[in-house]
């Protein structure tokens, strides 16, 4: 495989984590504008742990996921009580605050004669664990997709379980779910924390793929994109968000057919698609139809 296709495939894998994170919250009926913050927290935390403190990537990834989950839990505590668009706005404000905190974060150390670490708006250079440990791009790609596969299998298992039914019931009608004995707030907090960890995992892998990150990477655009991925692909199954990512990054950016007018084509397609299918390509009905056909 040539370098370019590996790059495109890697990006599809990386942003799939973020799309899945947005999708998980949508399943529980919450639209978050702020998942990019946890992606960013994962990237910064993981990058600092390997580049400055010399930890190995797996350990750093675990720590990054924990910090993403913790941050998402802390943001969720006051905001999950809010309804619909109020929640979306509050998560947006929280994510922008996080981005500005990255801009204010200066923590540089000299290692082997190089200054390493976050330098505010100048970004964070030299996250080179993957390179220094001789991981080939193709191997790294395989690592990303193995982790994505694990996440996807977990999603599919949960969707078929009682927990999945609980999640969907909270999303469909929180009052009804509460009257059936579901602790709606606890479920939502759990979902938010898990989604935070998932986004953070994507972030730490992103940081080590790019070796350079800056606060601008984690702005509103990224957050709305992740929501769009989940919605274009469909809200019926975890394959939906992946399909959304593949359509945007793979089919349009990868093929380069439309050149500079890519976003004009993609934007129009998305708007028209949502008229026909307001809950995405793989929506609940379609998924149900496919499942009944398979049996």
């Amino acid at each position: 495989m040539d370098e370019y296709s590996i790059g495109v495939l890697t990006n599809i894998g990386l942003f799939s984590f973020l799309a899945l994170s947005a999708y998980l919250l949508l399943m529980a009926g919450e639209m978050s504008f702020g998942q990019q913050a946890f992606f960013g927290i994962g990237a910064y935390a993981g990058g600092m742990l390997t580049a400055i403190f010399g930890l190995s990537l797996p350990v750093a990834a675990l720590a990054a996921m924990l910090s993403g989950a913790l941050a998402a839990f802390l943001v969720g505590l006051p905001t999950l009580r809010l309804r619909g668009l109020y929640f979306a706005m509050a998560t947006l404000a929280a994510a922008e605050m996080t981005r500005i905190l990255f801009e204010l974060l200066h923590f540089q150390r000299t290692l082997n004669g190089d200054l390493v670490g976050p330098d505010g708006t100048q970004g964070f250079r030299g996250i080179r664990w993957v390179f220094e440990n001789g991981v080939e791009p193709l191997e790294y790609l395989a690592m990303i997709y193995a982790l994505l596969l694990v996440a996807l299998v977990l999603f599919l298992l949960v969707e078929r379980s009682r927990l999945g039914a609980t999640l969907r019931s909270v999303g469909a009608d929180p009052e009804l779910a509460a009257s059936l004995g579901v602790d709606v707030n606890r479920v939502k907090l759990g979902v938010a924390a898990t989604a935070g960890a998932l986004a953070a995992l994507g972030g730490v892998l992103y940081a080590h793929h790019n070796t350079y990150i800056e606060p601008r990477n984690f702005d509103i655009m990224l957050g709305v994109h992740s929501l769009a991925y989940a919605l274009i692909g469909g809200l019926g199954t975890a394959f939906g968000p992946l399909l959304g990512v593949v359509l945007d990054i793979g089919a349009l950016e990868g093929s380069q057919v439309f050149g500079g007018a890519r976003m004009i084509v993609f934007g129009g397609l998305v708007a028209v698609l949502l008229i026909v299918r307001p809950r995405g390509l793989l929506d609940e009905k379609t998924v149900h139809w496919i499942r009944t056909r398979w049996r």
Partner: protein
Amino acid sequence: MDVLADLVQNTLDGLTAGAAYALLAVGFTLIFGVLRRVNLSYGAAIMFGVYFATWTSQHFQIGLIALALLSIAGAVAGGAYVERLCFSPHYRARDNSRADASSGSIAAMVASFALWMQFEEAAILAMPRHLYSFPPLYEGAPLQLGSFLLRVESIYLLLAAIVVCASLHAVLYRTRFGLAVRAVIDVPVAAQLAGINVSSVFVRIFALASAIGGLAGFLIAASSEQVTPMLGMWSTVKGMLAMMLGGLGSLPGAVVGGLVLGLVEVHSQWFFGPQMRDLIAYLLVFALLVARPAWMTRWTNIRSAS
């Protein structure tokens, strides 16, 4: 005394920025308050209008009034495109009783985001330079108020904000159209049953909001004498922030929110720098959304009682 002088000068500057934010927020709030939908393309349509005017001014000799009209016409055309493609297909799915995050509202919002991307790329393709100059609103020295300076553009912006709010108030509370709008806000189903054409009300509200946005965009471009493609994102974010500060969906709230945002930004930039300026603005919004103080909830709608 120096600190006090700075405070006064900053307050004057803050009111200027605030007047621009207030205008943007009034348009944004009009759409949100009536449709209960977030139009992420709001700023992009404004940028489209201003770019249209800029392009024309580079090819033809036109005056300021014509430029303003072109900006407004462009923004309304852009807004109409957004409304047709993103909002009108999803009116049926509108479920006002609960869950603002109903699938219709998410779909409409994501679709409006997709069109924002379209506008931005179209603008860059049509006018590829990063920055274009825009004819100035006023060519002269700022006014001297004692030792303080007040830009004449600020007066225009403040005046425009006042005039727009007063006329909007008159439209909403003195005309049959305004009555229909308020009925639709209160109980959409009942309004429909009473013979009000709800989607036509939405269309006209959209056009009105886009026109206000176009005027705001023109004034902002003409007082900063430049346009960049960033105007789209900037307008959406500032309009949204001011709307959130004002309690989402209230017109007086949007004006107050805009002015507060302008004042807070200018003062915090002066004392703590540009990053802290944004941090403080978002922190304020976050705290208000989470705490939802009683005075804010009292404002949250365009009231039916006048």
